[in-house]
């Protein structure tokens, strides 16, 4: 799979789409970087586009270092970091990040996304949730499904493209089921190309 293939698929999505991006844990690093490249550089570099990255798996500082390697401009991306506090990794906060104390504070995550959408209004916004698996570690499925249902529907009503990262084989069947209920489609990254 090449980032350009993923970028083409993402660009073809109608506004307000909610999409699951399925990553294979055996090729996680390559697939993750390809997805990041497609979402931040290909889709995120289009005029008027802004990206909000909800970091639950890795701290925003880590994702930001990858984004910098992809030459993503600072003013095009903001982070809702819900993991740094929990990991005691909060010494050097990013200026373009807002920090939520815990991945259990799901309402706070929703409110920070809303805050960033209002603070930086854009005709084309993308929200990346990384990842549903990490959220599932910290939250019971009942709560998580409620969170995804409310957040994704809200973002859809605002014509925001939402990408939810999921890692196959790691997740419980219930998580996959609930994700299928709230996304419009799922793209299996491994099946996109060579």
């Amino acid at each position, binding site marked *: 799979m090449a980032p350009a293939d993923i970028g083409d698929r993402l660009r073809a999505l109608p506004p307000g789409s909610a999409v699951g991006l399925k990553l294979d844990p055996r090729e996680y690093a390559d697939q993750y970087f390809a997805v990041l490249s497609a979402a931040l550089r290909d889709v995120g570099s289009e005029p008027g586009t802004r990206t909000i990255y909800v970091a639950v798996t890795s701290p925003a500082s880590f994702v930001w270092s990858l984004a910098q390697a992809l030459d993503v401009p600072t003013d095009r991306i903001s982070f809702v970091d819900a993991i740094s506090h929990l990991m005691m990794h909060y010494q050097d906060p990013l200026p373009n990040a807002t920090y939520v104390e*815990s991945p259990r*504070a*799901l*309402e*706070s995550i929703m*409110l*920070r996304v*809303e805050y960033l959408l209002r603070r930086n209004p854009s005709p084309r916004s993308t929200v990346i949730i990384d990842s549903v698996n990490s959220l599932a570690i910290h939250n*019971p499925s009942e709560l998580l499904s*409620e969170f995804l249902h409310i957040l994704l529907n809200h973002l859809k009503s605002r014509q925001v493209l939402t990408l939810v990262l999921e890692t196959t084989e790691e997740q419980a069947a219930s998580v996959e089921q609930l994700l299928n209920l709230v996304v419009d489609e799922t793209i299996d990254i491994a099946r996109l190309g060579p």
Partner: protein
Amino acid sequence: MESPAPPARAPVPARPGDTGTVLERCITGIEGLDNILGGGIPRGSAVLVAGSVGTGKTTLSLEFLIRGAERGERSLFLSVTEASDKLVQNLSTFEFFRTDLVVDGSLVFVDLPVIYEKLGMLGAELSSEELDILLRTIRDLVRSLGVKRLVLDSLTSLGYRIRTDEQIREFVLRLGEEMNACGCTALLVSEITPTQGRYSTRGVEEAIVDGIILLWNARRRGDIHRVLQIIKMRGSAHSHAQYVIELTPIGLLMTPHLKGARSEGED
């Protein structure tokens, strides 16, 4: 002393489908709040904003006034405890606050202790006569300035100088009537403790006011959320759900309180 029965107010459509007169709304300007109130607070209502320490009562009330002043509705903050100049300084944290609203008199801050002093009300307790004078002073201030939004922060602090339940009941009742007659929507801040089990210190205020907005800190697995709920709002088919709020530089934001797990201490 028996308190008089509350006078009849303008007819209101209490529920969808009612055919009573549709009340004009005071659009709070706090988007989420207006949504759950069905478009705003019925104009001229007296609303208790009840909550324990640090739940956002004063911040919500200040935003209500600033948003009103922005809309051309003169707004008055009556501060019982905190000095007005300190409050104005704190407003700079709001990105939507403009100092010209204070300079041009759209947003007015008055320290109630200054009024006490001018009226010679220096005793520890206010007599019924003094309460009557205080009420008329507030009414005259509202009338003369053409105030459309009033915040009294806090009713609880004022209540410490009022001896009996009957007196505070009479004061709140008459304040509500006077503000209603002026078309002024009033938020009365009420400080309560989490375990109090009521919405005001004396427990009599909540029955008289037109509305109650309750704020509290809910805990879920060790994390604390600020939660808002409309307990009552006469003349409004409002939401009864709970909402988590955050106080941000762009104003109060709200989202539904997730119910997947109950908060500790809840029924």
